[in-house]
C-alpha cells in the first residue's frame, strides 16, 4: 500500500468514526457501508463487501443510545479490509482462510477498540467542565469551541482504534503466515461456508435481542418459505 492508500484509510476511518456517534449518523459507520467504501478505494471491492456482510449483523442490536458503547464494528470493518489488502498478495491460494482469519481477529479487536470510544467520552468531560467554568465567568463564546473540540477527540479516537486493529492484526497475521498450511489443514471446511457462519451468528445475536411474540416461529417460517422460493426459482 502506498501513501495515497494510507491517507484514504485515515480519511474513511475518521469520517466513518465521526458518523458513528459525533456527527449526523447517516449510517456511513455501518460495517457493510464502510467496508464496501474502503474496498472500493483500495481496489478490493468484492472481498471487502464479503467482510461487510460478515460483520454487519454481529452487533446490529447493540444500540448506540444513552451511555451504551457498542464494540467498534466500524473500525473493525475498515481494519479488516486493510489487512486483506496487505496480506492477499502473499496468500493467493488461501483467500477464504485469510478472510475468515481476519474476520475472527477483528471480532476480538472490536471489543478492545471500543475502549478508545470510551476514552474520547471521558476526555469530553473535561471539555464540558471547561465550558461550564467559562460560562460561570460570563464567557459564553467558549461553548462553541469546546463543543467542536469534541469532534477532534472522537476523530483521534477513531484513528487510534483503526490503527490499533491494523497494527495488532498485522502482527498476528505475520506470525500466522508461516502456519497457514497447518491452519488450512485443521479447518478444511469450505471457506465460503465458514464465512457464512459470521452473518448466521449475527442473525442469532439480533434474534436474541428481539423478544417479541412468535419470534422463533416467524423466523423458521420465513426461512422455510424463502428457501423453497429460491429452490423453485
Amino acid at each position, binding site marked *: 500500500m502506498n501513501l495515497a492508500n494510507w491517507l484514504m484509510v485515515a480519511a474513511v476511518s475518521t469520517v466513518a468514526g465521526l458518523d458513528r456517534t459525533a456527527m449526523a449518523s447517516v449510517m456511513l459507520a455501518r460495517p457493510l457501508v464502510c467496508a*464496501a467504501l474502503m474496498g472500493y478505494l483500495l481496489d478490493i471491492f468484492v472481498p471487502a463487501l464479503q467482510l461487510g456482510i460478515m460483520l454487519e449483523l454481529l452487533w*446490529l442490536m447493540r444500540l448506540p443510545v444513552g451511555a451504551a458503547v457498542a464494540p467498534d464494528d466500524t473500525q473493525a470493518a475498515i481494519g479488516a479490509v486493510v489487512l486483506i489488502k496487505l496480506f492477499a498478495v502473499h496468500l493467493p491460494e488461501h483467500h477464504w482462510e485469510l478472510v475468515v482469519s481476519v474476520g475472527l481477529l477483528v471480532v*476480538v479487536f472490536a471489543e478492545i477498540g471500543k475502549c478508545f470510544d470510551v476514552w474520547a467520552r471521558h476526555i469530553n468531560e473535561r471539555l464540558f467542565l471547561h*465550558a461550564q467554568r467559562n460560562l460561570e465567568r460570563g464567557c459564553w463564546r467558549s461553548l462553541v469551541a469546546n463543543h467542536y473540540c469534541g469532534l477532534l477527540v472522537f476523530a483521534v479516537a477513531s484513528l487510534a482504534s483503526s490503527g490499533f486493529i491494523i497494527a495488532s492484526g498485522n502482527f498476528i497475521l505475520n506470525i500466522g503466515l508461516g502456519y497457514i498450511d497447518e491452519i488450512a489443514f485443521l479447518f478444511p471446511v469450505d471457506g465460503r461456508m465458514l464465512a457464512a*457462519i459470521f452473518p448466521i451468528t449475527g442473525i442469532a445475536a439480533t434474534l436474541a435481542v428481539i423478544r417479541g411474540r412468535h419470534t422463533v416461529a416467524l423466523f423458521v417460517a420465513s426461512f422455510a418459505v424463502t428457501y423453497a422460493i429460491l429452490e423453485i426459482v
Partner: protein
Amino acid sequence: MSEPVPVAVSKWGLLRLALRCLFVQSSWNYRQFQGLGWCVALLPELREFYPSDKLAAVLSKYLRYFNTNTFFVSSVAGATIAIEAKHSQGCDVPIEAHQYADAVMAPVAAVGDALFWGGYRSLICCFAVALAAYGFWWAPILLVVLFNLPVVVVRICGVWIGYNHGAAVIGMVQRAHLADVALVLKRATVVLLGAVCAVLVHGAHLPLGWAMATNALVVAIVLAAVFCLRKGVPTAIVLCTVIVSVTTLSKLLM
C-alpha cells in the same frame, strides 16, 4: 395593552438549527451526555432573543444533563425555541423552555430510539445484507439512501413542526403511535432475518435429503446461539464455538 409579539425565526434560521442538531453529540460525555451540544445548538437563536448581559444566565439553564434521540432532537429544539421566543418577549408560557426540554427528552428518546435504532435501522440493515449476499453490489448504497429518506424528513420537517406547534409537538408524536410502528418493524426484521439466513444457506446445490438436514442443522445452530447469547455469552465466543463445531462436524462427516 396588546400582547407582546414573539421574535420570529426565519425558515433559513430553522434549517440552520436542524443542521446544528446533526452535531448535538459532538461533545458527548459521561457527565452531561448531550448537554453541551444541546446548548450550542440553541445558542444562535438565544443570542437573538436575549441581550449579551442576560445570555450567560439563560445558557446556564441549558448547560446541564440532556439526552434524547438524535433524530427527534430537532423537533424538541424547534419547540424549545418557540417557547423561548415567547418567553423572551414577556408572553405567558405554560412551561419554561428548559423545563419543557427536560420533561420531553426521555419520552422522545424512548420512542425515537425504539423506532429508528431498534426498528428501522435493523430492518434496513438486514435488507441490505440479504441483497449483498445475493450478489447486488449496490446494497451498501441502498442502505444509506433508504435509512436517510425518513430520517432527513424527520430532521428537517421536525424542527419546522416543533417550532410551529411549540409544546404541543409531543402530543403529535404520541398520536402518531410510533411505538406501535417500531414493534411492527421489529417483527418485519425477524421475518427478514429468516430470509437472509435462507439466502446465505442456499446455493450449495445439495441433494434434497442433505439440503433438508443442512437446513435443520442451521436452524438448530441459530436457536442454540440465541439461547447462549440470551444467557450472556459474548458474541465472539459464540462465533468461535459455532466455527469449531461446524468444522469438527464437517470433518467427521467427510
